[in-house]
């Protein structure tokens, strides 16, 4: 693998007699989304502040592109650090400045750009983060989600190569949490920066993260992909992951991927009979249009609502579901055949289209530009599996046979 962009070697940090980080080793690679997970107060933010230089380690070395930062010249270090942005947990917006002034500040203070050029760049970021109406407002006049977007816009205004996110979803409801994570994922792809995020939003962060670092008992106990974390055998899994996953189930009605695997094993693979089961793979397509016309909050509300409707219809007959991608939900119906599944699916789609999604669709129509039509479609693939079949192959089969089962069509606006 390439040289890590950032590397920690045996980093120890103490505050007085209390050791917060104890010989931490980690690697962060360029162009990836790396998420540091762990319980509150475990030192995640402290770790992040070492990367940007707000805190200095008591022991150990931090390397940037393989070079220890303590060996760097001041100008070299300043140059390297100027490519890193930090989004604070509390947003740290200046209360006496408007959103526009907050976003413009790094350019006004650190560059010799002309006023017009600064205005152009700031307005571009304001538009991208859907803050046009809030541009002249003060942070205290904004909602929590808008403040997060303002903080993100400020962090991105200098076109950084690395953005550090310190618990970006703190204090947000489940829909907004996912909206903010989707926003980060979208921007990361759009601007191609390296994202390092501190979060305990499990499993939501798995969908946007390339790598997960688990901080437990003052040190990093796991580095790897979200999939690898599922097979990680460590007390961290019992104490941290399961407690956070339990909370997710209560909020969305969907299981985590790990819980899904366990249920699959206990309900299907340990069966003594050879009775089959059904799998549904559902996708809400045209997510980009939903993001563009309705924003991240509404998009997540749609997916969240879809999860709740799935649980309502399929959970009643013993089905269990998980979210595999941001817009994909997989449901296993352990006791149903294809015919029964099809009947319930019809009821589900009718109910879902009449329910919350129709309001969201109406909003989208109102906000869409003239002469432009926005359709939402739901695709579903069904497959029948046997207890000893590999679940991944059954899911793959279902996905490859997806058909559109519902579409909210629109008329072109005049």
């Amino acid at each position: 693998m390439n040289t890590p962009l950032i590397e920690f070697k045996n980093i120890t940090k103490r505050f007085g007699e209390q050791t917060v980080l104890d010989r931490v080793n980690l690697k962060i690679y360029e162009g990836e989304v790396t998420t540091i997970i762990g319980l509150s107060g475990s030192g995640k933010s402290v770790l992040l502040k070492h990367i940007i230089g707000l805190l200095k380690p008591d022991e150990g070395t931090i390397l940037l592109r393989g070079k220890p930062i303590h060996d760097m010249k001041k100008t070299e270090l300043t140059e390297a650090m100027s490519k890193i942005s930090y989004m604070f947990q509390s947003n740290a917006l200046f209360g006496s400045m408007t959103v526009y002034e907050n976003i413009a500040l790094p350019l006004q203070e650190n560059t010799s750009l002309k006023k017009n050029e600064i205005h152009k760049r700031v307005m571009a970021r304001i538009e991208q983060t859907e803050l046009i109406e809030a541009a002249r407002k003060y942070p205290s006049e904004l909602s929590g989600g808008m403040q997060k977007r303002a903080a993100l816009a400020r962090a991105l205004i200098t076109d950084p190569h690395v953005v550090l996110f310190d618990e970006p979803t703190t204090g947000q409801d489940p829909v907004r949490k996912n909206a903010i994570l989707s926003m980060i994922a979208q921007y990361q792809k759009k601007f191609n920066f390296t994202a390092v995020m501190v979060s305990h939003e499990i499993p939501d962060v798995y969908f946007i993260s390339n790598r997960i670092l688990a901080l437990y008992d003052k040190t990093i106990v796991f580095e790897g992909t979200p999939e690898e974390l599922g097979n990680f055998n460590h007390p961290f899994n019992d104490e941290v992951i399961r407690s956070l996953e339990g909370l997710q189930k209560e909020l969305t009605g969907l299981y985590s991927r790990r819980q899904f695997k366990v249920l699959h094993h206990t309900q299907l693979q340990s069966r003594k009979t050879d009775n089959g089961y059904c799998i549904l793979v559902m996708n809400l397509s045209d997510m980009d249009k939903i993001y563009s016309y309705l924003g991240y909050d509404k998009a997540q509300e749609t997916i969240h609502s879809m999860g709740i409707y799935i649980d309502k219809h399929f959970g009643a007959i013993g089905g269990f579901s998980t979210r595999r991608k941001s817009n994909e939900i997989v449901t296993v119906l352990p006791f149903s055949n294809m015919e029964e599944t099809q009947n319930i699916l019809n009821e589900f789609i009718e109910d879902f289209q009449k329910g919350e999604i129709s309001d969201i669709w109406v909003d989208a129509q109102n906000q869409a530009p003239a002469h432009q039509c926005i359709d939402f479609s739901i695709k579903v693939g069904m497959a029948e599996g046997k207890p000893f079949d590999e679940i991944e192959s059954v899911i793959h089969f279902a996905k490859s046979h997806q058909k559109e089962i519902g579409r909210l069509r629109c008329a072109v606006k005049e």
Partner: protein
Amino acid sequence: MSFNEGRQKNFQSPNSFYLFVTRPFAFTGRTVITWINSIGAATIFLILALLKTFHPKQFQKVIQQIYYIGARSTTIIMLVSLFTGMVLGLQSYHALVQFGAQGSLGTLVSLSLIRELGPVLTAIMITARAGSAITAEIGVQRISEQIDALETMRIDPFRYLVTPRITAAIISFPLLTTVFDLIGIIGGYISSVALMGLNAGVYAHSIQSYVDMEDLTNGFVKSVVFAVIVATVCCYQGYFVHMREDSKGAKAVGLATTSAVVISCVLILVSDYVVTSLLMV
């Protein structure tokens, strides 16, 4: 066990007795060391801030701070100085008239104001109005991570927050002291001439005869010294509010603001004596 019995028992142990004797010295030593450390830290703080005075992007910020510290304090300074001058004129008139020396009233009022009361009261009033606001503002920015945010944006918090305030104070204090002196002298005129019937020409002549440029210069020197003290103490208290050991968060900001005002006022009076002594040599 009564208090005295307990104390006697404690004295039986040589270790306790040793502690009883040495504790006051240890306390005094610690306090003195803390004070020396703080003075050293504040001096370095001031030097670092002054080094960044001539940064190209400072001008607008300094003008803004002159408006907050200086222009917006003008009304209160005028009000205080008017009544200070009036009461000074009134009291002095009654005292001087007993010796038939009321002709020196203008000299007494103007020299008192220009040499002492003007710089000192102006500094104290600005401390109360703007100094406390400086500490609270910087303190809130510190506890809400806004200063950390500046660092992550590669904006030097010293240059951005501290330098403009110290520079603006150095410019504003002498100007406001001038306003204080002038309005105070007018106040003295109102009470002694308009109310007590002293001859206006005598009042004006006594000022003209005995106030010279050195008095004005000394007053301005004092006001600059007070500006440096007040701005440094207030910025320092706010900037390091997170390092207070007695409290954290909003309470720490409140305590820092109180400390800033109290320390500034004490230092104004102490330094007034020191500067006066030096100027008289």
